[in-house]
């Protein structure tokens, strides 16, 4: 189906099902219970899961396949956001033209930056992309204030022309929509004591994320994808095999830049403002961490990594000392206070410390990311089921090492 073999079709259907049922799956705890704060099924966060999933899927096409580590992908995210907001100001509050422009402009940006940065490889490539991203950040922050509105960030105003749907006086800022259906409109359903929110914005981003995932799946299985893996494996052999590696890496760079622009455009579509901080190097670093944490070069890994980090950022960070006190209140005071103090370092504002530890553990013990962890568990379960005879070492050849020996 859709140019995929049976296994991939099944895989895609599972991904589609998971994405569509996210508002239910992420709301496992009854409303009002102590665990309710771990529910992640609210629109704002679910939109972020989908949008940063797209960002990481795109980044993975460059980093996971070709091995070129870009430290400047947030620049494309920012460019996408600015383009989208300008579309909202000038043309229409419909998100379709905004997203299209975001993808086109970030693609052109990626072509220019990639053309220069890809003259070098390895660490020099990373540094070049980082330099370009920081230049873009500074341009947005101060130099190009007329276009980007500097520190304040680009926002909608009451005086925006909006050629297509801006007729007549308005008293409040309009909301983004898709052919009249507002992004922030939601339907809430209460079932079994749980409150499920079905939000238009989430489903728009989810459908686009599924399309983005499908496209990346096709690229992974295509000759083009194979060439990108060849770039990572041995560029010398590739060139002596009659293939020009430069346009392949540039194409991968532009495609991943367009994914980032799409993510940026969607961010602006959910919340129509764009700030320079979206382009800062920390934002570029975040997508690198997402991809490595989930598993670079795997299809699902980057999405998993993106979800994981966004969950930590939004849920884990809410567990402050008060919450911890209520958890440990059953302990004697002398014991509760130190425990609360200890846990507070890793939760609430200290969530980045937890992320850092997680990242270290994954990089050291699971170089293939969370995906490798899942695969190892799967293998372990299968071996248990097969019984001891399958432990024959003859049938379990040594795994290929991750680093050249």
């Amino acid at each position, binding site marked *: 189906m859709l140019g995929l073999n049976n296994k991939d079709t099944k895989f895609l259907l599972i991904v589609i099902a998971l994405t569509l049922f996210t508002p239910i799956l992420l709301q496992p705890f009854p409303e009002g219970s102590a665990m309710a704060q771990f529910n992640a099924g609210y629109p704002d966060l679910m939109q972020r899961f989908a949008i940063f999933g797209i960002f990481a899927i795109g980044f993975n096409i460059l980093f996971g396949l070709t091995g070129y580590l870009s430290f400047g992908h947030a620049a494309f995210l920012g460019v996408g956001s600015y383009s989208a907001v300008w579309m909202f100001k000038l043309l229409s509050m419909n998100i379709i033209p905004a997203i299209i422009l975001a993808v086109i402009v970030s693609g052109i940006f990626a072509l220019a930056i990639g053309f220069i940065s890809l003259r070098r490889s390895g660490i020099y490539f990373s540094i070049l992309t980082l330099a370009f991203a920081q230049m873009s950040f500074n341009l947005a922050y101060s130099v190009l204030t007329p276009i980007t509105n500097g520190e304040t960030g680009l926002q909608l105003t009451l005086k925006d022309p909006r050629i297509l749907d801006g007729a007549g006086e308005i008293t409040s800022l309009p909301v983004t929509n898709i052919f009249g259906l507002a992004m922030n409109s939601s339907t809430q359903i209460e079932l079994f004591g749980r409150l499920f929110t079905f939000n238009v914005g989430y489903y728009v981003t989810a459908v686009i994320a599924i399309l983005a995932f499908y496209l990346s799946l096709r690229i992974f299985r295509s000759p083009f994808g194979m060439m990108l893996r060849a770039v990572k494996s041995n560029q010398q052999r590739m060139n*002596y095999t009659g293939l020009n590696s430069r*346009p392949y890496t540039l194409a991968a760079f532009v495609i991943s830049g367009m994914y980032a622009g799409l993510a940026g455009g969607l961010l602006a579509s959910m919340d129509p403002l764009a700030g320079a901080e979206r382009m800062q190097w920390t934002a570029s670093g975040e997508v690198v961490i997402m991809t490595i944490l989930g598993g670079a070069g795997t299809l699902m890994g980057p999405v998993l990594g993106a979800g994981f980090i966004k969950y930590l950022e939004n849920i884990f960070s809410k567990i402050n000392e008060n919450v911890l006190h209520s958890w440990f209140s059953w302990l004697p005071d002398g014991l509760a206070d130190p425990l609360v103090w200890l846990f507070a370092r890793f939760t609430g504002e200290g969530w980045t410390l937890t992320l850092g530890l997680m990242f270290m553990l994954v990089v050291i013990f699971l170089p293939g990311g969370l995906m490798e962890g899942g695969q190892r568990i799967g293998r372990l379960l299968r071996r248990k089921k097969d019984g001891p005879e399958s432990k024959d070492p003859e049938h379990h050849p040594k795994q290929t090492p991750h680093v050249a020996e």
Partner: protein
Amino acid sequence: MGILEVKNVGKRFGGLQALGDVNLSVQENSLHAIIGPNGAGKSTLLNCLVGKLIPDTGSVMFDGQSVLGRKPHEINQMGISRVFQTPEIFGDLTVFENVMIPCFAKRDGAFRLHAFETVAREKDIVEKAEHILDDVNMLDKRHMNAASLSRGDKRRLEMAMCLVQDPRLLLLDEPTAGMSRADTNNTIELLKEIKQKRDITMAIIEHDMHVVFSLAERITVLAQGTPLVEDTPENIKGHPKVQEAYLGQAHG
């Protein structure tokens, strides 16, 4: 006129004259060996032929066209394939993918954005790749990771990757360097077999006299960046100049 004509090629690295004034003519469908002691300039010469180095003087013509100033991938597309001293393969990819990549390069040229096709559905490529793997007896290893192959198998795989492109000229840079006697003999057999089955010109750079004399139809002896003699193996064997270059001075 040979298929490969090297005329007055010189290459200098700083104070070192790596190649003096090299003239070489490789005849079509022959197996031409270039031998010489360490530092004779064999590898420099080869690198000048494949676009890795650009000689300071002289010309290199392949089938009537100059290769100078062209990039390695352009020279490969002209019909020159190269086997490296240590096998260069795509270690992270499977054996089957390793031989499919040169098939794509041959069919689609140096670059094509074939992002919406599916590798498994390219029937002609899959067939061609299976065929060549069968030829080198590696079909049973097709799903293995290329990095996990034995040294000998890596060499066979690299040969297969070059041959599947049907090159007009195959350059081999010390294909038996660091191999055991048994592996060396296997490689000699493999090369003989290739030569028998196909219309192909081979130029081989080699250190090992045993390999050279069991394979070559013509031999060029290189010493200190200049060719000493070019002749048939029989005549080279007893040539006093060759003995001198290898042993330091004339025997006796």
